[in-house]
Protein backbone atom coordinates (compact mmCIF):
# COMPACT_ATOMS: atom_id res chain seq x y z
CA UNK A 1 0.00 0.00 0.00
CA UNK A 2 2.75 2.45 -0.77
CA UNK A 3 1.55 5.95 -1.35
CA UNK A 4 3.26 8.95 -2.84
CA UNK A 5 4.07 7.21 -6.06
CA UNK A 6 5.34 9.34 -8.80
CA UNK A 7 2.43 11.10 -10.30
CA UNK A 8 2.67 10.79 -14.00
CA UNK A 9 1.22 13.91 -15.48
CA UNK A 10 -1.89 12.69 -17.19
CA UNK A 11 -2.64 13.83 -20.64
CA UNK A 12 -6.07 15.05 -21.42
CA UNK A 13 -7.11 12.99 -24.36
CA UNK A 14 -10.52 12.45 -25.90
CA UNK A 15 -10.32 8.84 -25.11
CA UNK A 16 -9.68 9.51 -21.46
CA UNK A 17 -12.45 12.09 -21.32
CA UNK A 18 -14.86 9.64 -22.80
CA UNK A 19 -13.82 7.00 -20.36
CA UNK A 20 -14.38 9.34 -17.42
CA UNK A 21 -17.58 10.80 -18.76
CA UNK A 22 -19.58 9.93 -15.65
CA UNK A 23 -16.97 11.41 -13.34
CA UNK A 24 -16.77 14.58 -15.38
CA UNK A 25 -20.51 15.10 -15.46
CA UNK A 26 -20.74 14.71 -11.72
CA UNK A 27 -17.75 17.00 -11.18
CA UNK A 28 -19.46 19.63 -13.24
CA UNK A 29 -22.42 19.32 -10.95
CA UNK A 30 -20.22 19.72 -7.88
CA UNK A 31 -18.41 22.68 -9.37
CA UNK A 32 -21.67 24.45 -10.12
CA UNK A 33 -23.00 23.67 -6.67
CA UNK A 34 -19.81 24.85 -4.97
CA UNK A 35 -19.69 27.96 -7.08
CA UNK A 36 -23.22 28.95 -6.18
CA UNK A 37 -23.12 28.21 -2.48
CA UNK A 38 -19.55 29.05 -1.58
CA UNK A 39 -18.05 31.33 -4.20
CA UNK A 40 -20.96 33.52 -5.17
CA UNK A 41 -21.39 35.01 -1.68
CA UNK A 42 -17.77 36.11 -1.81
CA UNK A 43 -19.07 39.05 -3.76
CA UNK A 44 -19.80 40.32 -0.28
CA UNK A 45 -16.10 40.95 0.13
CA UNK A 46 -16.52 44.25 -1.64
CA UNK A 47 -18.07 45.44 1.63
CA UNK A 48 -14.56 45.60 3.05
CA UNK A 49 -13.74 48.33 0.57
CA UNK A 50 -16.90 50.27 1.24
CA UNK A 51 -18.45 52.07 4.11
CA UNK A 52 -21.28 49.58 4.01
CA UNK A 53 -24.69 50.79 5.10
CA UNK A 54 -27.62 48.38 5.02
CA UNK A 55 -29.85 51.00 3.41
CA UNK A 56 -27.55 51.45 0.41
CA UNK A 57 -26.80 47.79 0.00
CA UNK A 58 -23.58 46.65 -1.60
CA UNK A 59 -24.29 48.40 -4.85
CA UNK A 60 -24.61 51.93 -3.55
CA UNK A 61 -22.48 52.13 -0.42
CA UNK A 62 -19.63 54.61 -0.44
CA UNK A 63 -16.27 53.33 -1.63
CA UNK A 64 -13.46 53.92 0.79
CA UNK A 65 -10.70 51.80 -0.73
CA UNK A 66 -8.35 50.27 1.78
CA UNK A 67 -9.35 52.45 4.71
CA UNK A 68 -10.66 49.57 6.80
CA UNK A 69 -7.48 47.58 6.28
CA UNK A 70 -5.39 50.61 7.12
CA UNK A 71 -7.40 51.04 10.28
CA UNK A 72 -6.75 47.44 11.27
CA UNK A 73 -3.05 47.44 10.68
CA UNK A 74 -2.37 50.83 12.19
CA UNK A 75 -3.96 49.71 15.44
CA UNK A 76 -1.48 48.29 17.92
CA UNK A 77 -4.15 46.23 19.58
CA UNK A 78 -5.01 44.49 16.30
CA UNK A 79 -1.43 43.34 16.00
CA UNK A 80 -1.71 42.08 19.54
CA UNK A 81 -4.89 40.13 18.88
CA UNK A 82 -3.23 38.51 15.86
CA UNK A 83 -0.44 37.37 18.13
CA UNK A 84 -2.91 36.03 20.69
CA UNK A 85 -4.96 34.28 18.04
CA UNK A 86 -1.94 32.67 16.43
CA UNK A 87 -0.53 31.60 19.77
CA UNK A 88 -3.73 30.10 21.10
CA UNK A 89 -4.55 28.59 17.70
CA UNK A 90 -1.18 26.89 17.54
CA UNK A 91 -1.28 25.64 21.12
CA UNK A 92 -4.79 24.31 20.60
CA UNK A 93 -3.86 22.70 17.31
CA UNK A 94 -0.86 20.86 18.71
CA UNK A 95 -2.38 19.77 22.00
CA UNK A 96 -5.71 18.68 20.59
CA UNK A 97 -4.01 16.74 17.85
CA UNK A 98 -1.65 14.90 20.12
CA UNK A 99 -4.31 14.16 22.68
CA UNK A 100 -6.86 12.88 20.18
CA UNK A 101 -4.36 10.56 18.52
CA UNK A 102 -2.95 9.31 21.81
CA UNK A 103 -6.43 8.74 23.13
CA UNK A 104 -7.56 6.88 20.03
CA UNK A 105 -4.52 4.63 20.05
CA UNK A 106 -4.66 3.90 23.75
CA UNK A 107 -8.37 3.24 23.58
CA UNK A 108 -7.75 0.84 20.76
CA UNK A 109 -5.38 -1.04 23.04
CA UNK A 110 -8.09 -1.60 25.62
CA UNK A 111 -9.03 -5.19 25.16
CA UNK A 112 -12.13 -5.23 27.32
CA UNK A 113 -14.87 -4.64 24.74
CA UNK A 114 -17.49 -3.37 27.17
CA UNK A 115 -15.03 -1.02 28.84
CA UNK A 116 -13.87 0.24 25.49
CA UNK A 117 -17.35 1.01 24.28
CA UNK A 118 -18.23 2.70 27.52
CA UNK A 119 -15.14 4.87 27.63
CA UNK A 120 -15.69 5.96 24.08
CA UNK A 121 -19.30 6.85 24.53
CA UNK A 122 -18.46 8.85 27.63
CA UNK A 123 -15.49 10.50 25.99
CA UNK A 124 -17.52 12.42 23.49
CA UNK A 125 -20.28 13.57 25.83
CA UNK A 126 -18.59 16.91 26.63
CA UNK A 127 -18.78 17.78 22.95
CA UNK A 128 -22.49 18.39 23.50
CA UNK A 129 -22.09 20.71 26.44
CA UNK A 130 -22.16 24.34 25.46
CA UNK A 131 -19.11 26.46 26.09
CA UNK A 132 -21.02 28.42 28.67
CA UNK A 133 -21.50 25.30 30.77
CA UNK A 134 -17.94 24.06 30.30
CA UNK A 135 -16.37 27.40 31.12
CA UNK A 136 -18.71 27.80 34.07
CA UNK A 137 -17.51 24.53 35.53
CA UNK A 138 -13.90 25.40 34.77
CA UNK A 139 -14.29 28.80 36.39
CA UNK A 140 -15.68 27.09 39.47
CA UNK A 141 -12.91 24.53 39.62
CA UNK A 142 -10.18 27.14 39.32
CA UNK A 143 -11.68 29.74 41.65
CA UNK A 144 -9.86 30.50 44.89
CA UNK A 145 -12.13 28.13 46.78
CA UNK A 146 -12.37 25.64 43.94
CA UNK A 147 -11.21 22.06 43.79
CA UNK A 148 -7.87 22.83 42.13
CA UNK A 149 -6.77 25.26 44.82
CA UNK A 150 -8.00 22.85 47.46
CA UNK A 151 -5.93 19.99 46.09
CA UNK A 152 -2.85 22.16 45.60
CA UNK A 153 -3.06 23.42 49.16
CA UNK A 154 -3.64 19.99 50.64
CA UNK A 155 -0.64 18.65 48.78
CA UNK A 156 1.38 21.58 50.04
CA UNK A 157 2.33 22.70 46.55
CA UNK A 158 1.13 26.23 47.17
CA UNK A 159 0.77 28.05 50.46
CA UNK A 160 -1.95 30.52 49.54
CA UNK A 161 -4.74 30.39 47.01
CA UNK A 162 -3.94 31.21 43.42
CA UNK A 163 -6.31 33.42 41.48
CA UNK A 164 -5.78 31.66 38.16
CA UNK A 165 -7.75 34.13 36.10
CA UNK A 166 -5.84 37.17 37.29
CA UNK A 167 -2.52 36.17 35.74
CA UNK A 168 -1.73 36.55 32.09
CA UNK A 169 0.62 33.55 32.08
CA UNK A 170 -2.10 31.08 33.03
CA UNK A 171 -4.58 32.14 30.42
CA UNK A 172 -3.38 30.28 27.32
CA UNK A 173 -2.90 26.97 29.14
CA UNK A 174 -6.38 27.28 30.62
CA UNK A 175 -7.87 27.82 27.17
CA UNK A 176 -5.93 24.88 25.76
CA UNK A 177 -7.06 22.68 28.59
CA UNK A 178 -10.71 23.59 28.18
CA UNK A 179 -10.47 22.75 24.49
CA UNK A 180 -8.90 19.38 25.25
CA UNK A 181 -11.49 18.65 27.83
CA UNK A 182 -14.39 19.30 25.53
CA UNK A 183 -13.21 17.90 22.22
CA UNK A 184 -10.67 15.10 22.67
CA UNK A 185 -13.18 12.28 22.58
CA UNK A 186 -15.00 13.76 19.63
CA UNK A 187 -11.83 14.39 17.66
CA UNK A 188 -10.72 10.83 18.27
CA UNK A 189 -13.72 9.42 16.37
CA UNK A 190 -12.06 9.92 13.00
CA UNK A 191 -8.88 8.18 14.13
CA UNK A 192 -10.81 5.29 15.56
CA UNK A 193 -12.54 4.86 12.22
CA UNK A 194 -9.18 5.02 10.49
CA UNK A 195 -7.74 2.40 12.81
CA UNK A 196 -10.46 -0.04 11.82
CA UNK A 197 -9.29 0.29 8.25
CA UNK A 198 -5.97 -1.26 9.12
CA UNK A 199 -5.76 -4.81 7.93
CA UNK A 200 -5.95 -7.05 11.04
CA UNK A 201 -3.67 -9.59 9.43
CA UNK A 202 -0.80 -7.12 9.80
CA UNK A 203 -1.16 -7.31 13.58
CA UNK A 204 -1.37 -11.08 13.43
CA UNK A 205 1.76 -11.29 11.40
CA UNK A 206 3.52 -8.94 13.80
CA UNK A 207 2.45 -11.03 16.77
CA UNK A 208 3.88 -14.11 15.18
CA UNK A 209 7.12 -12.22 14.68
CA UNK A 210 7.03 -11.49 18.42
CA UNK A 211 6.57 -7.75 18.13
CA UNK A 212 5.84 -5.95 21.41
CA UNK A 213 2.87 -3.71 21.87
CA UNK A 214 4.87 -0.55 21.37
CA UNK A 215 6.33 -1.91 18.21
CA UNK A 216 2.90 -2.67 16.85
CA UNK A 217 1.65 0.78 17.65
CA UNK A 218 4.72 2.34 16.14
CA UNK A 219 5.05 0.26 13.03
CA UNK A 220 1.48 -0.67 12.23
CA UNK A 221 -1.12 1.56 13.89
CA UNK A 222 0.61 4.90 13.44
CA UNK A 223 1.59 4.36 9.80
CA UNK A 224 -1.91 3.02 9.22
CA UNK A 225 -3.59 6.22 10.32
CA UNK A 226 -0.87 8.52 9.03
CA UNK A 227 -2.83 9.64 5.96
CA UNK A 228 -5.74 10.64 8.18
CA UNK A 229 -3.41 12.46 10.55
CA UNK A 230 -1.76 14.30 7.70
CA UNK A 231 -5.01 15.37 6.08
CA UNK A 232 -6.49 16.63 9.32
CA UNK A 233 -3.27 18.36 10.23
CA UNK A 234 -3.18 20.13 6.90
CA UNK A 235 -6.79 21.18 7.17
CA UNK A 236 -6.36 22.48 10.66
CA UNK A 237 -3.23 24.42 9.87
CA UNK A 238 -5.54 26.68 7.94
CA UNK A 239 -7.69 27.04 10.98
CA UNK A 240 -5.17 28.41 13.45
CA UNK A 241 -6.69 31.86 13.12
CA UNK A 242 -10.01 30.44 14.21
CA UNK A 243 -8.73 30.03 17.72
CA UNK A 244 -12.14 30.63 19.10
CA UNK A 245 -14.30 33.27 20.53
CA UNK A 246 -16.54 31.95 23.27
CA UNK A 247 -13.91 30.51 25.60
CA UNK A 248 -11.77 33.61 25.49
CA UNK A 249 -14.78 35.85 25.75
CA UNK A 250 -16.21 34.11 28.77
CA UNK A 251 -13.00 33.30 30.62
CA UNK A 252 -11.26 36.58 29.87
CA UNK A 253 -11.44 39.65 32.05
CA UNK A 254 -9.94 43.14 32.15
CA UNK A 255 -6.76 41.99 33.85
CA UNK A 256 -5.81 39.48 31.17
CA UNK A 257 -7.35 41.15 28.13
CA UNK A 258 -3.92 41.75 26.62
CA UNK A 259 -3.47 38.03 26.12
CA UNK A 260 -7.07 36.88 25.95
CA UNK A 261 -8.51 38.84 23.06
CA UNK A 262 -8.73 37.10 19.70
CA UNK A 263 -9.45 38.51 16.26
CA UNK A 264 -13.10 37.53 16.61
CA UNK A 265 -13.43 39.42 19.88
CA UNK A 266 -11.73 42.40 18.33
CA UNK A 267 -14.21 42.37 15.47
CA UNK A 268 -17.05 42.17 17.96
CA UNK A 269 -15.74 45.13 19.94
CA UNK A 270 -14.94 47.31 16.98
CA UNK A 271 -17.25 46.15 14.29
CA UNK A 272 -20.42 44.38 15.19
CA UNK A 273 -21.34 46.33 18.27
CA UNK A 274 -21.00 49.49 16.22
CA UNK A 275 -22.76 48.25 13.09
CA UNK A 276 -19.50 48.25 11.18
CA UNK A 277 -19.96 45.34 8.76
CA UNK A 278 -17.10 46.57 6.63
CA UNK A 279 -14.55 46.19 9.39
CA UNK A 280 -15.72 42.68 10.18
CA UNK A 281 -15.51 41.78 6.50
CA UNK A 282 -12.01 43.21 6.25
CA UNK A 283 -10.88 41.15 9.22
CA UNK A 284 -12.55 38.11 7.62
CA UNK A 285 -10.67 38.64 4.37
CA UNK A 286 -7.44 38.93 6.30
CA UNK A 287 -8.16 35.66 8.07
CA UNK A 288 -9.03 33.91 4.81
CA UNK A 289 -5.88 35.19 3.15
CA UNK A 290 -3.67 33.97 5.98
CA UNK A 291 -5.46 30.63 6.08
CA UNK A 292 -5.10 30.02 2.37
CA UNK A 293 -1.46 31.04 2.47
CA UNK A 294 -0.81 28.61 5.34
CA UNK A 295 -2.70 25.85 3.59
CA UNK A 296 -0.81 26.27 0.34
CA UNK A 297 2.47 26.33 2.20
CA UNK A 298 1.69 23.27 4.28
CA UNK A 299 0.32 21.39 1.30
CA UNK A 300 3.44 22.11 -0.68
CA UNK A 301 5.66 20.91 2.12
CA UNK A 302 3.58 17.76 2.47
CA UNK A 303 3.74 17.09 -1.24
CA UNK A 304 7.46 17.60 -1.35
CA UNK A 305 8.09 15.12 1.41
CA UNK A 306 5.87 12.63 -0.38
CA UNK A 307 3.11 12.78 2.20
CA UNK A 308 -0.61 12.86 1.75
CA UNK A 309 -1.72 16.22 0.43
CA UNK A 310 -5.00 18.05 0.20
CA UNK A 311 -4.93 18.69 -3.52
Amino acid at each position, binding site marked *: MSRGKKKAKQEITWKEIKRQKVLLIWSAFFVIY*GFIFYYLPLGGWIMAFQNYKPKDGMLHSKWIGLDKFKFLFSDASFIRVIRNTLAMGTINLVTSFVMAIVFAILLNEVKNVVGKKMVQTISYLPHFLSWIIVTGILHDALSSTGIVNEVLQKLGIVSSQINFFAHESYFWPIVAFSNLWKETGWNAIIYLAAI*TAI*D*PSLYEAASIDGAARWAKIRYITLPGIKPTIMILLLMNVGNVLNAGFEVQYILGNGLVQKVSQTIDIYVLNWGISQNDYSLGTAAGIFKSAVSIFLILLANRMAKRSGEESLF
Partner: protein
Amino acid sequence: MKKKSLSDQIFVICNTIFMVAFVVITLYPVLNTLAISFNDGIDTVRGGIHLIPRKFTLQNYYTVLHKQNMVTGAYITVLRTVIGTLLALVTNALLAFIVSRKRFLFKSQLSLFWVITMYVNGGLIPVFLLYKNLHLTGTFWVYVVPGAVSAFNMLVLRTYMVGLPDSLEESAQLDGAGYMTIFVKIISPLCKPVYATVALFVAVGQWNSWFDAMLYNRMSDKYTTLQYELMKLLSSVMQQSGSADSMRNSGNSITPASIRAAATIATMLPIVCLYPFLQRYFVTGLTIGGVKE
Protein backbone atom coordinates in the same frame (compact mmCIF):
# COMPACT_ATOMS: atom_id res chain seq x y z
CA MET B 1 8.81 -13.71 26.91
CA LYS B 2 8.67 -12.88 30.59
CA LYS B 3 10.16 -9.47 30.16
CA LYS B 4 7.71 -8.65 27.47
CA SER B 5 4.69 -9.63 29.48
CA LEU B 6 5.93 -7.53 32.37
CA SER B 7 6.14 -4.43 30.25
CA ASP B 8 2.83 -5.47 28.82
CA GLN B 9 1.33 -5.60 32.25
CA ILE B 10 2.69 -2.22 33.17
CA PHE B 11 1.22 -0.87 29.98
CA VAL B 12 -2.18 -2.33 30.72
CA ILE B 13 -2.16 -0.94 34.24
CA CYS B 14 -1.07 2.51 33.12
CA ASN B 15 -3.55 2.50 30.31
CA THR B 16 -6.36 1.51 32.63
CA ILE B 17 -5.45 4.25 35.06
CA PHE B 18 -5.35 6.73 32.20
CA MET B 19 -8.76 5.64 30.95
CA VAL B 20 -10.30 5.79 34.39
CA ALA B 21 -8.88 9.25 35.01
CA PHE B 22 -10.07 10.34 31.61
CA VAL B 23 -13.57 9.09 32.27
CA VAL B 24 -13.72 10.73 35.70
CA ILE B 25 -12.58 14.10 34.45
CA THR B 26 -14.82 13.91 31.40
CA LEU B 27 -17.89 12.72 33.18
CA TYR B 28 -17.88 15.33 35.91
CA PRO B 29 -19.21 18.30 33.92
CA VAL B 30 -21.87 16.11 32.35
CA LEU B 31 -23.05 14.78 35.69
CA ASN B 32 -22.86 18.24 37.16
CA THR B 33 -25.09 19.52 34.38
CA LEU B 34 -27.43 16.62 35.01
CA ALA B 35 -27.59 17.47 38.71
CA ILE B 36 -28.27 21.13 37.99
CA SER B 37 -30.99 20.21 35.54
CA PHE B 38 -32.83 18.42 38.32
CA ASN B 39 -32.22 21.10 40.92
CA ASP B 40 -34.41 24.05 41.80
CA GLY B 41 -33.22 27.03 39.74
CA ILE B 42 -33.10 29.60 42.50
CA ASP B 43 -31.41 27.15 44.81
CA THR B 44 -28.74 26.47 42.19
CA VAL B 45 -27.74 30.12 42.20
CA ARG B 46 -26.39 29.65 45.72
CA GLY B 47 -23.74 27.40 44.23
CA GLY B 48 -22.33 24.21 45.66
CA ILE B 49 -24.20 21.74 43.46
CA HIS B 50 -21.86 18.95 42.41
CA LEU B 51 -23.21 15.52 41.53
CA ILE B 52 -26.45 15.33 43.47
CA PRO B 53 -29.35 17.77 43.28
CA ARG B 54 -29.98 19.53 46.58
CA LYS B 55 -33.56 20.55 45.99
CA PHE B 56 -34.98 18.10 43.50
CA THR B 57 -37.46 19.33 40.91
CA LEU B 58 -38.72 18.41 37.47
CA GLN B 59 -39.76 21.99 36.84
CA ASN B 60 -36.84 22.73 34.52
CA TYR B 61 -37.70 19.84 32.23
CA TYR B 62 -41.35 20.70 32.46
CA THR B 63 -40.61 24.22 31.27
CA VAL B 64 -38.37 23.01 28.47
CA LEU B 65 -40.72 20.35 27.19
CA HIS B 66 -43.83 22.47 27.48
CA LYS B 67 -42.58 25.29 25.38
CA GLN B 68 -44.92 26.10 22.54
CA ASN B 69 -43.91 24.72 19.14
CA MET B 70 -41.72 22.09 20.73
CA VAL B 71 -43.50 19.37 18.77
CA THR B 72 -43.13 21.14 15.45
CA GLY B 73 -39.53 21.85 16.35
CA ALA B 74 -38.82 18.23 17.17
CA TYR B 75 -40.50 17.05 13.98
CA ILE B 76 -38.53 19.43 11.76
CA THR B 77 -35.32 18.63 13.60
CA VAL B 78 -35.73 14.89 13.14
CA LEU B 79 -36.62 15.42 9.52
CA ARG B 80 -33.65 17.64 8.80
CA THR B 81 -31.34 15.29 10.65
CA VAL B 82 -32.48 12.29 8.62
CA ILE B 83 -32.74 13.97 5.23
CA GLY B 84 -29.73 16.18 5.79
CA THR B 85 -27.54 13.29 6.84
CA LEU B 86 -28.57 11.05 3.97
CA LEU B 87 -28.17 13.81 1.44
CA ALA B 88 -24.80 14.88 2.80
CA LEU B 89 -23.58 11.32 2.94
CA VAL B 90 -24.48 10.59 -0.66
CA THR B 91 -23.11 13.84 -2.09
CA ASN B 92 -19.93 13.90 -0.05
CA ALA B 93 -19.23 10.25 -0.76
CA LEU B 94 -19.77 10.76 -4.46
CA LEU B 95 -17.50 13.77 -4.54
CA ALA B 96 -14.89 11.96 -2.47
CA PHE B 97 -15.15 9.01 -4.83
CA ILE B 98 -14.52 11.22 -7.83
CA VAL B 99 -11.48 12.97 -6.41
CA SER B 100 -10.04 9.76 -5.07
CA ARG B 101 -9.90 8.15 -8.54
CA LYS B 102 -6.25 8.05 -9.48
CA ARG B 103 -6.92 8.52 -13.16
CA PHE B 104 -9.38 11.37 -12.77
CA LEU B 105 -8.16 14.26 -14.87
CA PHE B 106 -8.98 17.18 -12.57
CA LYS B 107 -8.68 15.60 -9.18
CA SER B 108 -6.16 18.11 -7.90
CA GLN B 109 -8.06 21.11 -9.26
CA LEU B 110 -11.39 19.88 -7.96
CA SER B 111 -9.89 19.22 -4.53
CA LEU B 112 -8.37 22.67 -4.37
CA PHE B 113 -11.68 24.18 -5.44
CA TRP B 114 -13.32 22.57 -2.43
CA VAL B 115 -10.49 23.02 0.05
CA ILE B 116 -10.65 26.76 -0.48
CA THR B 117 -14.31 26.82 0.52
CA MET B 118 -13.29 25.86 4.03
CA TYR B 119 -11.42 29.09 4.58
CA VAL B 120 -13.47 31.72 2.81
CA ASN B 121 -16.77 33.16 3.85
CA GLY B 122 -18.75 35.89 2.19
CA GLY B 123 -20.48 36.97 5.37
CA LEU B 124 -23.96 36.91 6.76
CA ILE B 125 -25.72 39.34 4.45
CA PRO B 126 -24.46 38.13 1.06
CA VAL B 127 -25.34 34.56 2.00
CA PHE B 128 -28.76 35.67 3.12
CA LEU B 129 -29.35 37.48 -0.15
CA LEU B 130 -28.24 34.43 -2.11
CA TYR B 131 -30.63 32.10 -0.31
CA LYS B 132 -33.40 34.59 -0.73
CA ASN B 133 -32.81 34.83 -4.46
CA LEU B 134 -32.70 31.06 -4.72
CA HIS B 135 -36.06 31.04 -2.89
CA LEU B 136 -34.62 28.90 -0.16
CA THR B 137 -35.60 31.24 2.66
CA GLY B 138 -38.93 30.37 4.19
CA THR B 139 -38.61 26.72 3.20
CA PHE B 140 -37.38 23.52 4.76
CA TRP B 141 -34.71 23.15 2.09
CA VAL B 142 -32.59 25.93 3.47
CA TYR B 143 -31.56 23.49 6.20
CA VAL B 144 -30.28 20.70 4.01
CA VAL B 145 -29.34 21.99 0.58
CA PRO B 146 -26.70 24.65 1.30
CA GLY B 147 -24.61 22.45 3.57
CA ALA B 148 -24.99 19.23 1.59
CA VAL B 149 -21.38 19.20 0.44
CA SER B 150 -18.65 20.14 2.85
CA ALA B 151 -14.99 20.00 2.11
CA PHE B 152 -14.14 18.67 5.54
CA ASN B 153 -16.35 15.60 5.25
CA MET B 154 -15.31 15.09 1.67
CA LEU B 155 -11.64 15.04 2.68
CA VAL B 156 -12.23 12.60 5.50
CA LEU B 157 -14.01 10.28 3.08
CA ARG B 158 -11.40 10.78 0.39
CA THR B 159 -8.54 9.86 2.72
CA TYR B 160 -10.24 6.62 3.54
CA MET B 161 -11.06 5.81 -0.08
CA VAL B 162 -7.53 6.53 -1.22
CA GLY B 163 -6.38 3.97 1.32
CA LEU B 164 -8.34 1.21 -0.40
CA PRO B 165 -6.35 -0.91 -2.82
CA ASP B 166 -6.41 0.24 -6.43
CA SER B 167 -6.77 -3.34 -7.55
CA LEU B 168 -10.40 -3.30 -6.45
CA GLU B 169 -11.27 -0.76 -9.06
CA GLU B 170 -9.06 -2.33 -11.70
CA SER B 171 -10.47 -5.81 -11.35
CA ALA B 172 -14.01 -4.49 -11.42
CA GLN B 173 -13.29 -2.51 -14.53
CA LEU B 174 -11.95 -5.62 -16.17
CA ASP B 175 -15.33 -7.16 -15.45
CA GLY B 176 -16.87 -4.27 -17.34
CA ALA B 177 -18.23 -2.31 -14.37
CA GLY B 178 -18.75 1.44 -14.78
CA TYR B 179 -17.73 4.04 -12.26
CA MET B 180 -21.15 4.23 -10.65
CA THR B 181 -21.25 0.49 -10.17
CA ILE B 182 -17.83 0.57 -8.59
CA PHE B 183 -18.91 3.39 -6.29
CA VAL B 184 -22.10 1.71 -5.15
CA LYS B 185 -21.11 -1.94 -5.14
CA ILE B 186 -17.39 -2.04 -4.41
CA ILE B 187 -16.19 1.07 -2.63
CA SER B 188 -19.22 2.00 -0.50
CA PRO B 189 -19.53 -1.33 1.32
CA LEU B 190 -15.90 -1.05 2.37
CA CYS B 191 -16.37 2.49 3.64
CA LYS B 192 -18.83 1.71 6.39
CA PRO B 193 -16.66 2.93 9.27
CA VAL B 194 -15.96 6.25 7.62
CA TYR B 195 -19.54 6.63 6.43
CA ALA B 196 -20.59 6.11 10.01
CA THR B 197 -18.15 8.79 11.13
CA VAL B 198 -19.32 11.34 8.61
CA ALA B 199 -22.95 10.48 9.27
CA LEU B 200 -22.38 11.15 12.94
CA PHE B 201 -20.71 14.48 12.23
CA VAL B 202 -23.47 15.64 9.92
CA ALA B 203 -26.27 14.33 12.11
CA VAL B 204 -24.92 16.07 15.18
CA GLY B 205 -24.50 19.28 13.23
CA GLN B 206 -28.04 19.10 11.90
CA TRP B 207 -29.48 18.19 15.24
CA ASN B 208 -27.82 21.05 17.04
CA SER B 209 -28.19 23.85 14.56
CA TRP B 210 -30.59 26.68 15.18
CA PHE B 211 -28.97 29.72 13.63
CA ASP B 212 -30.29 28.92 10.16
CA ALA B 213 -33.81 28.51 11.52
CA MET B 214 -33.53 31.92 13.17
CA LEU B 215 -32.08 33.63 10.11
CA TYR B 216 -34.15 32.18 7.34
CA ASN B 217 -37.44 31.24 8.99
CA ARG B 218 -37.67 33.88 11.68
CA MET B 219 -41.24 35.02 11.27
CA SER B 220 -42.88 31.67 10.75
CA ASP B 221 -43.25 28.79 13.18
CA LYS B 222 -43.78 26.28 10.44
CA TYR B 223 -40.12 25.32 10.05
CA THR B 224 -38.86 26.06 13.49
CA THR B 225 -36.35 23.64 14.99
CA LEU B 226 -35.92 22.15 18.42
CA GLN B 227 -32.74 24.03 19.16
CA TYR B 228 -34.15 27.32 17.97
CA GLU B 229 -37.10 26.96 20.31
CA LEU B 230 -34.68 26.24 23.13
CA MET B 231 -32.57 29.24 22.27
CA LYS B 232 -35.65 31.42 22.31
CA LEU B 233 -36.64 30.03 25.68
CA LEU B 234 -33.16 30.56 27.04
CA SER B 235 -32.79 34.11 25.86
CA SER B 236 -36.19 35.03 27.21
CA VAL B 237 -35.35 33.62 30.64
CA MET B 238 -32.06 35.45 30.51
CA GLN B 239 -33.78 38.66 29.58
CA GLN B 240 -36.10 38.62 32.54
CA SER B 241 -33.30 38.51 35.01
CA GLY B 242 -31.56 41.56 33.73
CA SER B 243 -33.10 44.45 31.92
CA ALA B 244 -34.22 47.80 33.11
CA ASP B 245 -37.10 48.25 30.77
CA SER B 246 -38.99 45.09 30.17
CA MET B 247 -41.46 43.58 32.55
CA ARG B 248 -40.32 41.81 35.64
CA ASN B 249 -41.65 38.95 37.57
CA SER B 250 -40.40 37.29 40.64
CA GLY B 251 -41.40 34.28 42.68
CA ASN B 252 -40.25 32.09 39.84
CA SER B 253 -37.68 29.45 40.40
CA ILE B 254 -36.50 29.23 36.82
CA THR B 255 -33.12 30.64 35.97
CA PRO B 256 -31.09 30.64 32.76
CA ALA B 257 -28.56 28.24 34.26
CA SER B 258 -31.11 25.60 35.18
CA ILE B 259 -33.00 25.89 31.91
CA ARG B 260 -29.75 25.65 30.02
CA ALA B 261 -28.81 22.51 31.89
CA ALA B 262 -32.18 20.87 31.29
CA ALA B 263 -32.12 21.84 27.63
CA THR B 264 -28.60 20.50 27.26
CA ILE B 265 -29.48 17.14 28.74
CA ALA B 266 -32.80 16.89 26.89
CA THR B 267 -31.24 17.47 23.48
CA MET B 268 -28.09 15.55 24.23
CA LEU B 269 -29.82 12.27 25.01
CA PRO B 270 -31.27 11.38 21.59
CA ILE B 271 -28.11 12.19 19.70
CA VAL B 272 -25.91 10.42 22.23
CA CYS B 273 -27.99 7.31 21.73
CA LEU B 274 -27.09 7.41 18.06
CA TYR B 275 -23.47 6.63 18.75
CA PRO B 276 -23.64 3.10 20.11
CA PHE B 277 -25.75 2.32 17.07
CA LEU B 278 -23.06 3.61 14.73
CA GLN B 279 -20.32 2.18 16.85
CA ARG B 280 -20.76 -1.33 15.53
CA TYR B 281 -19.40 -0.15 12.21
CA PHE B 282 -16.20 0.87 13.91
CA VAL B 283 -15.71 -2.39 15.72
CA THR B 284 -15.44 -4.62 12.71
CA GLY B 285 -12.23 -3.91 10.90
CA LEU B 286 -11.70 -4.10 7.21
CA THR B 287 -11.42 -7.48 5.64
CA ILE B 288 -10.23 -6.84 2.19
CA GLY B 289 -9.09 -10.41 1.92
CA GLY B 290 -8.23 -11.76 -1.47
CA VAL B 291 -7.65 -8.57 -3.37
CA LYS B 292 -4.57 -7.39 -1.54
CA GLU B 293 -1.81 -5.89 -3.60
